[in-house]
């Protein structure tokens, strides 16, 4: 949704190893990854991020027992195959960057125009939780082995900035230092 106009998207192609897409309404070219407009009538606009999560089907059902799920029979079933996030698909982009393995999983966070990536392995090294400040906003980034998933939140609750610790890792239970809330 841009400026009140509802857009519907199509896959275009890979540009430097990153998927691009176009909207049928204006023909603007966008990136999948961060919703940036590359060219076209809506150049300068950016798609708004909405929170979503990659986790296992089991963990997602635990979190959202009332969840719905896509109907498998779309007519394209023959194309479906078991996908593991982070596994190489053979045509990886090469950016000559050896700091992390290709396709290393990370949690990307944007806050007030600032961007930061939190690789899973670094969050795990730090105990599965990082209290940080990004774009002048206090945030907390979690990673949990349950569902190999992670999320980021604002640390500001009811105008109070909290600092979090892991309480029970296997149950994804956390505690904040300031109020002791679990």
């Amino acid at each position, binding site marked *: 949704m841009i400026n009140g106009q509802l857009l519907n998207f199509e896959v275009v192609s890979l540009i430097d190893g990153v998927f691009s897409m176009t909207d049928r309404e204006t023909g603007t070219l966008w990136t999948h990854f961060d919703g940036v407009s590359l060219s076209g009538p809506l150049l300068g606009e950016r798609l708004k991020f909405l929170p979503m999560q990659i986790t296992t*089907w089991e963990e997602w059902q635990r979190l959202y027992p009332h969840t719905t799920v896509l109907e*498998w029979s779309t007519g394209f079933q023959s194309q479906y195959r078991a996908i593991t996030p982070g596994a190489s698909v053979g045509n990886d982009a090469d950016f000559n960057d050896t700091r992390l393995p290709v396709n290393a999983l990370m949690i990307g966070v944007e806050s007030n125009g600032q961007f930061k990536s939190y690789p899973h392995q670094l969050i795990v090294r730090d105990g599965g939780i990082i209290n940080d400040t990004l774009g002048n906003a206090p945030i907390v980034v979690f990673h949990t082995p349950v569902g190999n998933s992670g999320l980021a939140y604002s640390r500001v609750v009811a105008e109070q900035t909290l600092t979090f610790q892991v309480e029970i890792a296997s149950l994804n239970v956390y505690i904040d230092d300031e109020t002791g809330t679990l």
Partner: protein
Amino acid sequence: MGSKPQINKNTKRLIISIGLIALVLITITGCAQATESELASAVANQPAAVEATPKPAGPAATSKPSGPTSDPDATLAPIEARPTRSPNDPTPTAVRPTPTPSSPSNNPTPTENPAPVSPTATTTAAAPNATSTSALQATAVPNATSVTAPTATPTPLPTAIPMPTPRPTPGPITRQTQFVPLDEPAYVTRENASTNIKNDSYVLGVASNGEARAYPLDMMWYHHIANDTVGGEPWLVTY
């Protein structure tokens, strides 16, 4: 003595004929310039007229089929849009008079060549602070100019045509992959989920206004895009 007036006569004839030729040339160039400036002002007026006409939502999609001959130009224009182009430069009259119709190579900036047709479109499009209405106008303009361009005097158009540089994707941006997006895909409750979705299968999880939906990666790796509505909100789910 008798030959002198003869020479003078011949010289006079020569001068007169040269004068006539010059006059004809001036007239011709004058006409050419006149038509050119007429066209420039005509084209300059077009976008304004187009913008004044209220266009229904989604003009790009509906008006695409019209004017197939000029479609490449029309669809190339929005792709060409660059933020570097300042919104005030491409006044058609400023660009047009300099290049003569027959010498496109004289133009130092060939990308400016389709001047009256596309820059109006690209500048409107390039304005980053465009409101929703001006965004709609931006989409309307390329199509509108594509329709009006062929009806204008055909002679100046050759200056615009040599410009297009070979580009990998002529025509409208279309899907260049095998991947077909999902549009408002069917979904089921978790009890009725396909047995193809295992407990340890990964899903993209979306929760919106009390509604939750899982997009199995095993499916999304292929579609890459789902245009969907969750919790009453339009969601673009990509992988």
